[in-house]
């Protein structure tokens, strides 16, 4: 029996079309659009001026506070604009526009493997902070803050999230195959920084090649375990992963460090490796560009700030019947309308959904089938929460733990009456916040 979390969960069709594709380098774009709010927390402060020349990796916006992150130039070039452009939220946000000087297309500069960790714990944390590393699994929480734990909280285990439970996406999968050794060094870096000796890599069983690879390279390292997990969404959620691997439940409204755990995504671990071992700031990431009708779907190294239309061009253009463009996976990603939206640190994939799948069925009355309850990984009653929010009763929704919803979307996915459960729950969370 493979490990998994017990409460709730669904198994949508995996559609991992790009799981055997190696990571390609996307050509350096002529112009990059770098938003200053790419992470959870306070937006960064711009430290460059108009028409200023910048180098690759030069800091262009500095951390705006404790929970914030600095941003570095993905290309060598000139700052041409400090303007507002539409980002994946659909709103206009401040961003730095840089025109690249690069005369010719170059592949990503691959750095040599360096296993020896020279920096001490404090220097590691500083390096992670100054290189602008944020959680690359999608939440984009500044990694430095996550690692900067209260010494009293007694962390004993580092969990590495290689679950990638979203359908379609294979960014983490392809990275695990391409950079396993580097990720292993990254794990050791974090263990050193946290002064702990135990790490577990959790990978879902639909990525057997990645599991075997890590089992192989970690066979002489007793402190790093590799755990195969049953395929189930949303196992990549921090709380679900901790439950699956360690059978510990993060208390309601609490954080993983309260149960002695820190979780990092494999992509983040790789970025930490490059930052700590080579001093490379986070200026690019792996993005899966895919869709059932897409000609040549694949995984790409993409510079932060690249407009997603460049990504779509790289896979052979947008199929004719595309009805939805998703920034992220189909379960939690955001639908986009504008193709100029840039790739940010949190962009794990671009998924193009065609006619049939894109449209929602008409919402009908709730038939109390209770499927939403049985799939909710947080033990909530989505049907009830929607009803309460519809009737404008945020207080009762709060008493029914509406705020603990992780917005995985399992309830809306399973509802036979096509009810927009998660839409109302999100709205309810907003109402609760405002009151």
């Amino acid at each position, binding site marked *: 029996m493979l490990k998994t979390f017990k409460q709730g969960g669904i198994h*949508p069709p995996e559609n991992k079309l790009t799981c055997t594709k190696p990571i390609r380098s996307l050509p350096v774009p002529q112009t990059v659009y770098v938003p200053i709010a790419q992470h959870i927390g306070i937006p960064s402060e711009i430290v460059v001026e108009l028409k200023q020349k910048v180098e690759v990796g030069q800091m262009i916006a500095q951390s705006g506070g404790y929970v914030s992150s600095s941003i570095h130039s993905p290309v060598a070039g000139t700052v041409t604009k400090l303007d507002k452009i539409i980002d994946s939220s659909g709103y206009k946000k401040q961003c730095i526009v840089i025109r690249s000087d690069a005369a010719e297309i170059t592949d990503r500069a691959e750095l040599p493997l360096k296993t020896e960790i020279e920096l001490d714990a404090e220097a590691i944390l500083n390096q992670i902070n100054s290189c602008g590393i944020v959680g690359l699994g999608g939440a984009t929480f500044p990694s430095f803050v996550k690692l900067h734990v209260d010494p009293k909280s007694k962390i004993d285990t580092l969990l590495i999230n290689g679950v990638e439970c979203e359908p379609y996406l294979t960014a983490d999968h392809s990275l695990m195959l391409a950079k396993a050794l580097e990720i292993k060094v990254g794990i050791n870096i974090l263990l050193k920084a946290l002064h702990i000796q135990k790490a577990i890599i959790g990978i879902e069983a639909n990525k057997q090649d990645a599991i075997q690879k890590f089992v192989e390279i970690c066979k002489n390292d007793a402190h790093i375990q590799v755990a195969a997990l049953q395929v189930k969404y949303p196992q990549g959620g921090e709380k679900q992963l901790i439950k699956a691997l360690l059978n510990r*439940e993060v208390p309601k409204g609490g954080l993983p460090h309260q149960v002695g755990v820190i979780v990092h995504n494999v992509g983040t671990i790789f970025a930490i490796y490059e930052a700590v071992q080579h001093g490379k700031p986070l200026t690019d990431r792996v993005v899966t560009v895919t869709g059932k009708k897409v000609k040549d779907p694949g995984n790409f190294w993409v510079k932060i700030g690249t407009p997603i239309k460049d990504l779509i061009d790289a896979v052979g253009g947008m199929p004719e019947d*595309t009805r*939805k463009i998703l920034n992220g996976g189909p379960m939690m990603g955001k*639908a986009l309308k504008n*193709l100029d939206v840039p790739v940010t640190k949190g962009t794990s994939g671009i998924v193009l959904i065609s006619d049939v799948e894109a449209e929602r069925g008409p919402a009908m009355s709730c*038939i109390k*089938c209770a499927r939403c309850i049985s799939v909710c990984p947080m033990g909530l009653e989505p049907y009830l929460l929607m009803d309460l929010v519809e009737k404008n009763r945020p207080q009762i929704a709060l008493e029914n733990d509406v705020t603990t919803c992780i917005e995985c979307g399992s309830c809306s996915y399973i509802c*036979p009456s096509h009810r927009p459960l998660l839409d109302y729950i999100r709205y309810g969370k907003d109402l609760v916040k405002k009151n």
Partner: protein
Amino acid sequence: MEHQNIIISASPHLHDASSTQKVMRDVIIALTPALLVGVYLFGVGTLIITATAIISCVLFEYLIQKYWLRKPLSINDYSAVVTGLLLAFNLPSNLPIWMVVVGSLVAIGVAKMSFGGLGFNIFNPALIGRVFLLISFPVQMTSWPLPIVNRMQYADAITGATSLGMVKEASLMGEPLSQISNQLTTQMDLFMGITGGSIGEMSALALLIGGLYLLIRKVITWHIPVVFLLTMFAMSGIFWWVDPQQYLNPVFHLLAGGAILGAFYMATDMVTSPMTPKGMMVFAFGIGVITVLIRLFGAYPEGVSFAILIMNAFVPLINTYTKPKRFGEPIRAKIL
């Protein structure tokens, strides 16, 4: 650069392709074996009653929505078909057509549409229709055509009493069961369905096949049928163990009357049953206890319909006290 055809909506962007129609269709498929047994046993009567019930249920729903509520039509969801089918399953095969129509009107009009339509009703519509008829027309509703011999008869079918009816009569007269035991249907015949009774409650075997289908298709879970039948078995078993002269054995209780039909198709009605497994078990336990109490000590020989309707009324209360365990919250004892 914007595209005209592109739609945006909040996540999730996938759906598992299930629908209310598919759920209802599964229920109809599951009821088919029992319907075929009904046709085999009662022939034309079954066909007339079933067709009347289904057509009038769908028609009443259509008329009420279109001309009275003026709401968007929802007869496409097949729920009225299921109500009609279940109502027919609970009727004797020689009931006059107009009574079937009245029963359908009460089921759809009173029990379903007056609460707001599918999903809002508190009581199982088919059972409300059936109980209304039982109370209004007790003679017609308890004259049961004999099986097989009546295939070509409808109104002038030869009738007889059901086993549970005979037992009730005997117990009211104070006679021991041994006096009537040779008149009772054998348990094997009950299992196969060769006996008198409502159209759809006859064959435990056919109903179990359909029930299994519903379990496999995950339309229902095991909690309600298993707990309901186990409770009935245990409770009637205790009485039988104490005094086998006066009380029927528990296997007979399970096979006779509407226990299996109620357990798999009526009590499990999604709309009128609790939301969590814990709640379902409380609900099913209540139905089991009330059914046995009515069968043994009530005025009616059969109590499944009343038991389910009584427990339907408790569903909102049960839901309030049997919430799922929230993630990250310690398991604590709740009042049940």
